[in-house]
């Protein structure tokens, strides 16, 4: 007898054991959406009829002994930047009014083959160009733990849907931290795989060289299963659990620890202490050119985004939210010579992160310098300093979009006010599976110590 499943893996086992049907699980998600979405605004489109039909089809196949794998019959949400055939991809923008996707994005096609049930399309920061979801044609997403706060973005609706039980997992995108930021702010697990690991075709581009797609889930086990299905592996194996004893973590303190909320810093140091107590080896490492991270990011991301939006910035400028329009316009002024300088800087930083990882299992740092921010407040106080929310929220994640290294946020405690804090693990390029295995060990240590 299964208790009511909370995680993707629990639901998957319950479906396999026929302790629950996909239709029942889907109905629970739809009921939760009906109850909570008016307050949270996580979904732009709810696919009630389509999801119910998919769930019934999954139940028939499972009952007939044709279970496809762990995603079969599992209701998941999809960021509304990603094409799902026959449904609108709004990108949370009036610019996309009337759009209907003709075919699935490649990762969605793989999930459809794996038997996932698509419960709906989630709200985001317009065109994924922001970290609070406040600039959305559909209104802001609200944090399920405190509706005066943002769940972080740009995949904010995805994270809120998982945290609040409206979906068992979600597919998000990450160009500067848009999976890891909301995962940290909501106490979830969010994976940005190695650049190029998962195809981004069928996803509205923001920045061609920085865009990633990946899972947002409740646990590392769920993340491993969803990531496997997104890679096209129908029956992904969950790797054997390992201990953190003897694992080597590089902790890059300069720059990354210079601007941290005191409670975030305290929770992160607690986590480091628990890992050390469990036998992990933590060593400080240096990434020399951290001072140039933000300028490299800006000079790559903005002109690449502007190149996608140049035509619509001319033809329908008033259909953008003001802030997103202005940021895209900034990108149109960046000179080619400066874009090339930034691309060279990208190579330098990639080598420096590789050097910092040499002889180590991964890097360990906070995911987000502050807890979930209040809606409507563009500035945040950290110690004596008043900083723009956008710059602060991107500060710890954007480097690994620049370098393409896989990075995952896992929960590492809560503030005294109950807001989640995340720790970020960064692995070697093309070794995303190894990173997931280390993340599972870290998750277990932090949960049980």
């Amino acid at each position: 007898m299964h208790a009511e499943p909370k995680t993707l893996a629990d639901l998957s086992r319950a479906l396999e054991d026929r302790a629950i049907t996909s239709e029942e699980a889907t109905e629970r998600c739809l009921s939760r959406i009906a109850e909570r979405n008016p307050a949270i605004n996580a979904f732009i489109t709810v696919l009630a009829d389509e999801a119910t039909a998919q769930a019934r089809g999954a139940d028939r196949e499972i009952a007939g002994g044709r279970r496809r794998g762990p995603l079969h019959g599992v209701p998941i949400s999809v960021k509304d930047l990603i094409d799902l055939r026959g449904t609108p991809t709004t990108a949370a923008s009036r610019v996309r009014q009337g759009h209907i996707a003709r075919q699935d994005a490649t990762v969605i096609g793989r999930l459809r083959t794996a038997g996932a049930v698509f419960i709906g399309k989630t709200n985001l920061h317009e065109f994924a160009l922001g970290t609070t979801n406040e600039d959305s044609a559909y209104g802001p997403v609200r944090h399920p733990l405190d509706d005066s706060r943002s769940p972080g973005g740009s995949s904010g609706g995805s994270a809120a849907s998982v945290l609040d039980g409206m979906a068992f997992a979600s597919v998000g995108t990450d160009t500067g931290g848009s999976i890891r930021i909301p995962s940290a702010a909501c106490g979830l697990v969010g994976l940005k795989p190695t650049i190029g690991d998962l195809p981004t075709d069928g996803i509205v581009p923001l920045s061609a060289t920085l865009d990633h797609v990946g899972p947002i889930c409740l646990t590392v086990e769920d993340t491993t299963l969803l990531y496997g299905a997104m890679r096209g592996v129908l029956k992904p194996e969950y790797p054997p659990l390992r201990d953190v004893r003897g694992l080597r973590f590089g902790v890059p303190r300069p720059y990354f620890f210079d601007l941290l909320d005191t409670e975030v810093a305290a929770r992160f140091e607690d986590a480091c202490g628990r890992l050390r107590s469990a036998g992990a080896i933590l060593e400080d490492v240096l990434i020399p050119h951290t001072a140039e991270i933000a300028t490299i990011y800006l000079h790559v991301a903005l002109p690449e985004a502007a190149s996608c939006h140049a035509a619509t910035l001319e033809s329908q400028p008033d259909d953008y939210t003001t802030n997103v329009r202005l940021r895209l316009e900034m990108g149109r002024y960046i000179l080619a010579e400066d874009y090339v300088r930034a691309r060279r800087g990208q190579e330098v930083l990639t080598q420096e992160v590789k050097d910092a990882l040499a002889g180590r299992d991964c890097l360990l740092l906070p995911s987000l310098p502050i807890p979930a921010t209040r809606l409507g407040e563009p500035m945040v106080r950290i110690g004596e300093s008043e900083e723009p929310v956008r710059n602060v929220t991107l500060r710890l994640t954007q480097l690994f979009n620049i370098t393409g290294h896989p990075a995952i946020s896992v929960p590492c405690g809560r503030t005294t006010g109950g807001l989640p804090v995340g720790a970020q693990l960064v692995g070697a390029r093309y070794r995303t599976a190894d990173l997931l295995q280390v993340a599972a060990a870290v998750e277990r240590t932090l949960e049980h110590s």
Partner: protein
Amino acid sequence: MTVDTWLENALRDADRRQLPALRPLLEALARSTRLLRAADWNVDASDRTAPPTGHAR
């Protein structure tokens, strides 16, 4: 083009396009571009720029 000249032209263009709200963003971008151009990995045709050292500056 120097950053100063670039900024002057960009601000004039933003005004011409009736986008005054772009002014502070372009000024912030100019500060960021100065930092980018000062980075030690940049190549200078005169060969007077040191190659990246890999050490903290």
